[in-house]
């Protein structure tokens, strides 16, 4: 007998799946905001080449970018408790997402800062702005504006990556689907549905971030 598809488990359990979607969005929002903040700080250190800080940030960036997210997650969730830092699954997930995004966005934002025309620096110096003022008032917005599309893509990559947080018993979209498949044996349908939702979330997040970018950083000139 050929396989009969049944999408009923999805209708019947929409509450659990909706909760999973909201959790995925919440993780992405928290991890995304923290990660981008971390990225700005890291980029400034890398850009200014302040000794010691520069080496620390470089080591952090290389360590994160050359190891898988899953291992970072396991290290934080399973490893850190033996150093006395015991985190809940969702806390570990947000921390891992923020650290991961922070490393990638450090490099993206640094490239944005380095692509700025020399004239900006000279103009800021001519106004006798301090280095801190120059960064905050003159350089940051145009740099972010230049690399905003790359940052959006990176946030989406982190959102998709959050599906492995299901391994820490965080009930996000993937583990909601996994829980239901164990109960209903409709694995294929549930994962197909989850995949479609991830594709939609990627579109939605890109749309929202583009609006955020237009609203807050479009005024950065060059």
């Amino acid at each position, binding site marked *: 007998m050929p396989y009969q598809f049944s999408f009923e488990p999805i209708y019947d359990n929409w509450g659990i799946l909706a909760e999973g979607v909201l959790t995925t969005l919440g993780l992405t929002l928290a991890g995304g905001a923290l990660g981008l903040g971390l990225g700005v700080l890291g980029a400034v250190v890398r850009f200014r080449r302040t000794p010691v800080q520069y080496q620390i940030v470089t080591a952090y960036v290389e360590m994160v970018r050359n190891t*898988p997210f899953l291992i970072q997650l396991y290290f934080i969730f*399973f490893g850190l408790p033996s150093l006395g830092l015991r985190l809940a699954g969702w806390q570990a997930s947000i921390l891992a997402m923020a650290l991961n995004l922070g490393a990638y966005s450090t490099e993206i934002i640094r490239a944005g800062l380095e692509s700025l025309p020399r004239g900006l620096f000279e103009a800021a110096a001519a106004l006798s702005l301090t280095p801190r003022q120059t960064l905050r008032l003159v350089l940051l917005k145009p740099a972010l504006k230049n690399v905003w599309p790359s940052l959006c893509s990176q946030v989406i990559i982190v959102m998709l990556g959050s599906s492995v947080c299901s391994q820490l018993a965080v009930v996000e979209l993937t583990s909601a689907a996994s829980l239901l498949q164990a109960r209903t044996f409709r694995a294929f349908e549930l994962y197909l549905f989850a995949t479609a939702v991830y594709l939609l979330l990627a579109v939605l997040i890109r749309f929202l971030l583009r609006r955020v970018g237009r609203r807050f950083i479009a005024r950065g000139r060059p």
Partner: protein
Amino acid sequence: MIRFTFPDIVRGLVSGLFWTVGLSLIAFLGGGLAGFAILMARLSRNRIVSRAASLYIEFFQGAPLLMQLFLVFFGFSLLGFNISPLATAASVLTLYAGAYLGEIWRGSVESLPRGQWEAAESLALGRWAQLRLVILPQALRISIPPTVGFSVQLVKGTAVTSIIGFLEITKAGTMIANATYRPLMVYGLAALGYFLLCFPLSLAARRLERRFHAPADKR
């Protein structure tokens, strides 16, 4: 009860690392072939073919790798086949790498000035000859740094296959950590294993990029 000494732990992880490397190589070679097919389809003048290829790319770049693995793993069992974790991992990573490599290579082809195509056409070369003799040799040069860069992403991607039960270094790490109760050290060593594989590739990608002066798209 088995007691794990430090050399036992390292030995377990290294044998996992061996499978990580093997799976990465399979996926890179398979993905290279798939990527070339996708590139050809994207460059095709047939609208339907090139649209299909871009949908393929959007799917594999827009869906989480874990979902792709689950879909193939459970999809095959629906059809009545029992598929091993290795076969699932190798086929999914091949398709995944094909999407990324196809897109990277299309970017390299499109970064060539239009004049190259026109010059080749003015020599009365056919479409295939234009590609083979004029376009691809130049695009190849541009595509090397981002291709090496992608291999880092692919090696890291193999970690997710531990979730469907493929015994590579992450899975080995999980098992050893559960047996020894020393997750900090075991996952730290596993991370070191990945770092030793990926960091040289990252450095090579960066060096090649500087040498060829072709800025690769940042991923």
